[in-house]
């Protein structure tokens, strides 16, 4: 069905899939390297067309706005976060192209996130699994909006307990970032993650309401590395 993938990937890149199709394809991108490669190929085929746009000089004030943001948000450093992360990640097939188009890969409980605007290009993603098995959770992080979304894909219920999310930055101690909703997707806002660091997201089983101590007390049931997605 190579042609099928190619047509879907082509439409995805063009942006002519409808919302449901887009989401379905985005889920596929997380697990299907052939689909990722197909999108990358279309990107390569078509991207020279972008440069046909006639130039237009923006207002002088625009640079001032950009400069202001830049001054407050520099987390660059000369290393290929993406490549580093690739080495660490065994789980996720990566979207290697500028696949924007309102990704809202939250099929499980669209109602709970429906009030939010569709997020732009996903920047970082982690698929959390039980020691390398089928992903149980997909975690995405958009550093522009500082929003982390946690989408259960295949999570066993833990009656009477809460599932608590932790972030482990580099060698630092796990830091609690919140509890998962009982069911459906969870959106965590105002999350400032330093993406320069290797980042692992983990889920532990805790007493109802979360760890009483601020440290993880229950077993780690899922974990996975956060992988930065290149935007082209």
């Amino acid at each position, binding site marked *: 069905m190579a042609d099928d993938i190619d*047509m879907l990937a082509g439409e995805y890149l063009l942006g002519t899939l409808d919302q449901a199709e887009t989401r379905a394809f985005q889920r596929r991108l997380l697990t299907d390297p052939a689909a990722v490669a197909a999108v990358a190929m279309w990107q390569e085929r078509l991207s*020279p067309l972008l440069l046909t746009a006639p130039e237009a000089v923006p207002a002088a004030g625009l640079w001032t*706005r950009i400069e202001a943001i830049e*001054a407050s948000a520099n987390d660059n450093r000369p290393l290929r976060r993406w490549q580093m992360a690739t080495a660490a990640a065994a789980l996720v097939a990566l979207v290697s192209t500028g696949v924007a*188009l309102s990704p809202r890969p939250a099929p499980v409980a669209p109602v709970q996130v429906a009030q939010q605007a569709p997020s732009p290009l996903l920047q970082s993603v982690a698929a959390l699994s039980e020691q390398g098995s089928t992903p149980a959770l997909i975690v995405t992080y958009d550093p522009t909006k500082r929003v982390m979304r946690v989408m259960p894909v295949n999570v066993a219920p833990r009656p009477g307990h809460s599932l608590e999310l932790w972030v482990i930055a580099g060698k630092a101690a796990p830091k609690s970032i919140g509890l998962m909703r009982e069911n459906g997707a969870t959106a965590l806002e105002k999350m400032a993650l330093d993406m320069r660091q290797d980042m692992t997201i983990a889920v532990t089983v805790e007493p109802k309401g979360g760890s009483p101590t601020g440290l993880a007390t229950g077993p780690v049931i899922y974990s996975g590395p956060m992988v930065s997605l290149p935007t082209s």
Partner: protein
Amino acid sequence: MSTEDLPDLLLAVAQGDRAAFARFYQRTSAKLFGIVLRILPERSFAEDAMQEAYAKIWRNAAGYDAQRGSPITWAATIARNVAIDLRRRERPAGRTRVEDFDFNALSDPSGASAEQLAALRICLDRLDPEQRALILAAYLNGESREELSERLGHPTGTIKSWLHRGLARLKGCLDG
């Protein structure tokens, strides 16, 4: 410093060099603004998209991979995606700009090879005009399937099948 290569500038940007970022902006912003304006003709939206696009460029410069294309194409793709996101999100109504496609502007001295560009041009030429127009309208103007359907007065199913035929022929021509 206009002789500075964009790849070198981008490398400096990745290291947090703000002066390099300013020069990268000077060198690329007119092209990127042109790209964004096709998708978001209203300048206030287009400027929002530019701001977001350059914020991404600044943040993600370290992720630029020279093997995947030239810096201008990389930046152009980021700008397009941001603009389309904004367009889908804000749905600025009925201001699609339908412009002629300028084949002569199809040049990317620092990126795609002359053969690649020539092939793209030939293969686009071989498409039926309707198929070509649809692909360009979607890719360059950011029109969704529904918008194309409304503007052209054909059912979305028809648009989809035309797009498929166009994409299939384009792929066959470019890869073959």
